[in-house]
């Protein structure tokens, strides 16, 4: 199984006017890495989830996500934006954006990784470390350390 995140899936200076653009930019990275086979199809699935209820949570976090037939393996795309993008949270725009892509038929084993990742997002220490990360590889290492314990 490939790593859930690699350096080329990290965008530390994400520029986007709204949440759809932010999601698209991150999804393009996933598509370029071959983890998303149909960019528009995947984005439609993410939108469908976002339309049910905005995925922003307090503390400046947006978590666009979907289980989609167009995803080949469980993947995390990460974007950081100084300006912020509104993801519908009550306390303002999101600065940390996590695009979680899960394959539609993914087994429990795949999902466990994404589940433990989601759990880490709640921790303030993890968020602060991500906000302070100087480069892409630091983000990747942080995720590996916090989520996979290595």
């Amino acid at each position, binding site marked *: 199984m490939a790593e859930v995140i690699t350096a080329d899936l990290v965008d530390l200076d994400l520029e986007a006017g709204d949440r759809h653009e932010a999601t698209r930019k991150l999804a393009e990275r996933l598509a370029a890495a071959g983890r998303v086979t149909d960019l528009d199809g995947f984005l439609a699935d993410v939108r469908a989830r976002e339309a049910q209820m905005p995925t922003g949570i307090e503390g400046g976090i947006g978590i666009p996500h979907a289980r989609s037939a167009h995803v080949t393996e469980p993947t995390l795309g990460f974007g950081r934006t100084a300006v912020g993008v509104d993801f519908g949270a009550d306390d303002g725009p999101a600065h940390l954006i996590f695009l979680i892509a899960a394959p539609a038929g993914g087994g*429990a084993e795949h999902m466990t990784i994404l*589940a*433990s990742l989601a759990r880490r997002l709640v921790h303030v220490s993890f968020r602060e470390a991500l906000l302070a990360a100087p480069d892409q590889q630091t983000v990747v290492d942080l995720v590996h350390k916090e989520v996979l314990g290595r």
Partner: protein
Amino acid sequence: MKIVAVTSCPTGIAHTYMAAEALEQAAKDAGHEIKVETQGAAGAEPLAAEDIAAADAVVFAADVDVRNRDRFAGKPLIETSVKRAINHAGSVLAELEAAAARGPAPAAAGPATETAPAPATKVDQQAHLGTRLRQWLMTGVSYMIPFVAAGGILIALAFLFGGAEVATKVNGGTFQSIKYPGVTDLSKLVAQAGYAGLLFKIGATSFAMLVPILSGFIAYAMADRPGLVPGIVSGLLASAIGAGFLGGLIGGLIAGAVVIAIKQVKVPRVVAGIMPVVVIPLVSTLIVGGLMIVVVGQPIAAAQRGMTNWLNGLGGTNAILLGILLGLMMAFDMGGPVNKVAYTFGLAGLASGNLKVMAAVMAAGMTPPIGLALATVVRPKLFTKAERVAGEAAWLLGASFITEGAIPFAAGDPIRVIPSLMVGSAVTGALSMAFRATSRAPHGGLWVIGLIGRPLLYVVAIVVGILVTSVCVIAAKSIGRRVPAEGEAEEAVVPRAAPAAG
């Protein structure tokens, strides 16, 4: 304090686990013990029964229905949205402490609604209700689909092996001038109607459960287990008074609402124990059954009489207009009273030697399931997984003139689906009349094509109707859905305030 919690969100890969983590952290900080069941995509590890038994209070942080919630019956309960659990886990637990101090929930299976955060605005409440309504209908539909598939395919096989007369052999009546007494003693079923008759009888029995199961599980989705009895009874009554699936749909909703209302009534402790087992089923079934027979039943019977008279008067006028009208009626309720009036009109035509009406009726009854089946193949994304499965069975059901194959789709999304089906069936009905196709068979669909006059044109009429149905369904589903997913319109329909979203 010992706490158990269930977290659950639509996709089950992010918020479910974040809410679990947030609750666990907050509980640790406040010195509580907590066990969380995450009903997400990684598979739910169920809470141990002894943990639930030992718990002082229960939290549901869920945006979709919590599975097996009756495990927690009688415990002090807080229900909230996943987002609120993530953002404000501390205050959720503080509310929970207050709820636990007040003691167990009033009715054994009733959620402690007084502690749940109230919807913030009227708009939010409406959006919320719409989503809930769809969830309720889809729950009923998903339990109903296996009955449609099993019964429908058995009936189709019966026609395939036994010919068009198999239904008449089993139910009694006259077919092509031969009078059949019908099977009253099931031990003589095979002798009288053959093995095809056996298939037909089993299929018809499964079909008879279609409306009761639909209404029963709509009520179950609304009001949990106590909803099942009044729901199923209302469905049986809807069938008995000939109110069809629309009657069952309304009956299920009424049953669920009545049970919810009864649960709100505060009762003394001594009575509380027998509420879910005796009082709620008894009172709700009586109320719902009474409503079905007295209020719902009469208008439907009257409408049916009126329509039959009207149709008989209309018979002399333009045949194509009649074809359109019969087509609209066949698709309107898919086996319900309106459909039955049109079908009876076809039978009456058959008896009096007008074979064109029967042909138009049968053709128009075949297009809804097949048109929907085609739509699920062309645009699978517009349909739920359950609907796509129903679509696979719908090919055969439609080809066998079992219009009920369309019900799973109509029950889940009546506003978009039913008009589309009516358009397609109207086209087919009109074409069949225009082509002057005839049918000597009262039932059987494509399997009795040998009894059809002008069979090629007849098939053309059906195929055109199927295409029209399919295009209309796809268009209706695309238009209605795309709006809330894009742009600013989204903000109006999606509840933004976290408490209201629970």
